[in-house]
């Protein structure tokens, strides 16, 4: 915990953390200083002049709050007529050449320029000369579409490509009212985090090809989630909406700040992984190629359970689901394997957010002592005559071909979120809710335990994995049973999992394979 200091804002004493700049420090106590160019991950640039504040200590009349560290006894003025006039003037500058095309702009509803206009400006335009026209819907690459006219030249996107991804594709060319963001001819955006510039852009200049014109921002419900794209477990917002007469679907993922895990950003693959939540889903239960009710399929599966059935659990399952499935395996008296080498894409990770392991909860498998080695799996497969897979796609990314022939001779039961090669050839297929439609906890590759709640509510909700496990005969399915089981395997978990995730202790993390 940083040292707390006292300073005055508009004559009122507030206590803030030392070592921060005025924008960040005062934000914590609920005082907003308007700004365009400052972003905590990109540092203070001081180019937008929107955060100018007065300090009563004989320094120059105005200072940018983003570049001013808090100091004890500092007297900050935010509400004087002079500051208000400056803010209004800065807004007028920003809007001189702005097209004001909010009705067709994707950012409308979550636009800094709109918000600040209502708060700090609210005057009619005095401009009588034609606006400077610049490039529209420019394809910058990586699914980023740029509108130069909407841009306020805060340079957040430029700084992101230079400071964070170190690829430097973007630059501000020309000067004065002709200045604009662009790429060098033949060198478009080319990095795996490019779509973060869409979130960073305070206005509608940077839009995502994927999200453009799909949904107005104010219709979206923003629920917190954990990205299941890889073992990093980046924190995200799941923005979804149920349109009239339609089903609840996800329109986009956005990064959610978690200093412990992903900071302010997520990778593009993870961001676009929401498509897999909407498409290619297994929706109907099937027995011997015929659609049937889930109950019927579960009853058929239950009959097949016995010591000669091998249970296969996915590293994508939450801890809760794994606990229920493990209890089921113990009750049935059969082997449980977490073999899932297909989920590892060797060499794909970049040492930052993107990981080789494309499953969300492999550490959870280890925590529960579920064996995931190929040898054990192969041995167990040879001594079994049936396999029940809990969302583990053996053939994901075209792997597991050596088991294909063996499985063809066996009875396969697939409890799955998605249609895949395993469900196609399964004697019994049972659909389950995916991670956006259920809640649970996962442990990421750094040993951080994170909880996610249910976001999407389908018109016809699918049962989640713990319910299916319960229907199949698992003795541990109620929330309280699972919670007490979790506390047994995770001693540092005393109460609920905190918002930012729980870093497991050294000894606990030691069980986690690297």
């Amino acid at each position: 915990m940083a040292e707390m200091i006292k300073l005055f804002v508009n004559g009122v004493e507030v206590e803030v953390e030392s070592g921060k700049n005025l924008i960040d420090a005062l934000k914590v106590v609920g005082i907003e200083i308007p700004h365009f160019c400052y972003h905590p991950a990109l540092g203070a640039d001081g180019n937008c002049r929107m955060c100018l504040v007065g300090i009563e200590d004989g320094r120059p009349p105005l200072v940018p709050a983003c570049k001013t560290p808090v100091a004890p006894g500092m007297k900050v003025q935010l509400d004087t007529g002079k500051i208000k006039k400056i803010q209004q003037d800065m807004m007028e500058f920003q809007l001189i050449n702005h097209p004001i095309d909010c009705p067709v702009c994707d950012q409308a509803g979550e636009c800094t320029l709109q918000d600040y206009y209502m708060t700090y400006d609210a005057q009619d335009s005095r401009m009588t000369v034609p606006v400077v026209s610049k490039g529209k819907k420019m394809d910058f690459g990586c699914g980023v579409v740029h509108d130069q006219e909407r841009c306020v030249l805060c340079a957040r996107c430029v700084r992101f490509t230079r400071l964070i991804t170190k690829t430097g594709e973007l630059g501000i060319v020309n000067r004065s009212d002709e200045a604009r963001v662009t790429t060098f001819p033949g060198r478009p955006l080319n990095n795996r985090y490019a779509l973060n510039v869409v979130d960073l852009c305070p206005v509608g200049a940077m839009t995502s090809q994927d999200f453009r014109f799909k949904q107005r921002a104010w219709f979206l419900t923003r629920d917190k989630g954990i990205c299941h794209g890889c073992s990093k477990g980046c924190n995200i917002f799941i923005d979804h909406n149920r349109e009239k007469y339609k089903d609840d679907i996800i329109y986009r993922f956005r990064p959610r700040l978690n200093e412990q895990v992903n900071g302010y950003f997520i990778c593009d693959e993870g961001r676009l992984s929401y498509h897999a939540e909407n498409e290619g889903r297994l929706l109907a239960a099937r027995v011997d190629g015929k659609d049937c009710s889930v109950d019927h399929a579960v009853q058929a599966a239950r009959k097949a359970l016995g010591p000669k059935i091998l249970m296969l659990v996915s590293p994508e399952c939450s801890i809760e689901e794994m606990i229920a499935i493990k209890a089921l395996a113990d009750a049935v008296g059969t082997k449980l394997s977490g073999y899932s080498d297909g989920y590892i894409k060797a060499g794909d990770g970049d040492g930052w957010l993107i990981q080789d392991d494309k499953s969300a909860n492999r550490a959870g498998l280890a925590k529960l002592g579920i064996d995931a080695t190929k040898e054990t799996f192969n041995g167990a497969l040879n001594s079994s005559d049936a396999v029940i897979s809990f969302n583990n796609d053996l053939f994901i990314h075209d792997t597991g071909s050596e088991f294909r022939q063996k499985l063809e001779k066996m009875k396969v039961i697939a409890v799955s979120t998605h249609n895949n090669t395993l469900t196609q050839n399964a004697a019994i297929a049972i659909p389950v809710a995916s991670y956006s439609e259920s809640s649970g906890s996962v442990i990421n590759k750094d040993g951080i335990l994170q909880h996610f709640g249910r976001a999407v509510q389908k018109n016809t909700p699918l049962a989640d994995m713990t319910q299916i496990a319960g229907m199949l005969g698992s003795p541990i399915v109620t929330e309280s049973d699972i919670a007490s089981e979790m506390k047994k395997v995770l001693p540092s978990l005393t109460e609920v999992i905190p918002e930012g995730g729980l870093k497991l202790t050294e000894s606990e993390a030691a069980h986690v394979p690297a």
Partner: protein
Amino acid sequence: MSDRSKLIVTGKPFRFDQERDAEFERLVKRYPTRESMILPALWLTQEQEGWISAEAIAYIADRIGTFASQVFECATFYTMYNLHPMGRNHICICRTLSCWLRGKQEIVDYLKNELGLKPGEIGADGKFSLEEVECLGHCGTAPVVQVNGEFHESMDVDKLKSLLATLK
């Protein structure tokens, strides 16, 4: 200032000739970082070719080891760098505050009519090219016109007429 971001792609590779190559290597030692070489390298290119193409900017960026976008920024920011071939007589009119207040528009309008050129253009015969530029640092004697690098101060239309007559 007009939009200078539409670079000309020649389709031919660019590199420094032997003399400029040596000069680049001599200069690079003078600076703490290699990025400092962006402006001198742009000058060297302009000295060699008379103007700066997209290929030249990419070459400079790769030679220095910086982002092409950064060299692109510098080349478009400073109007002294020519991003297309110039006329035999390159006329720059300052458009910054003092010159604007002291009547640069009359000069621009006169030249537009007389030469049939808009700022940023080059005549078909290659005799003249016109550019509106940012502050040339002669605010006390505004408006100022720069022809082939030479300053002509306190300009008006009459003075401009006699100046144009001397140009070939």
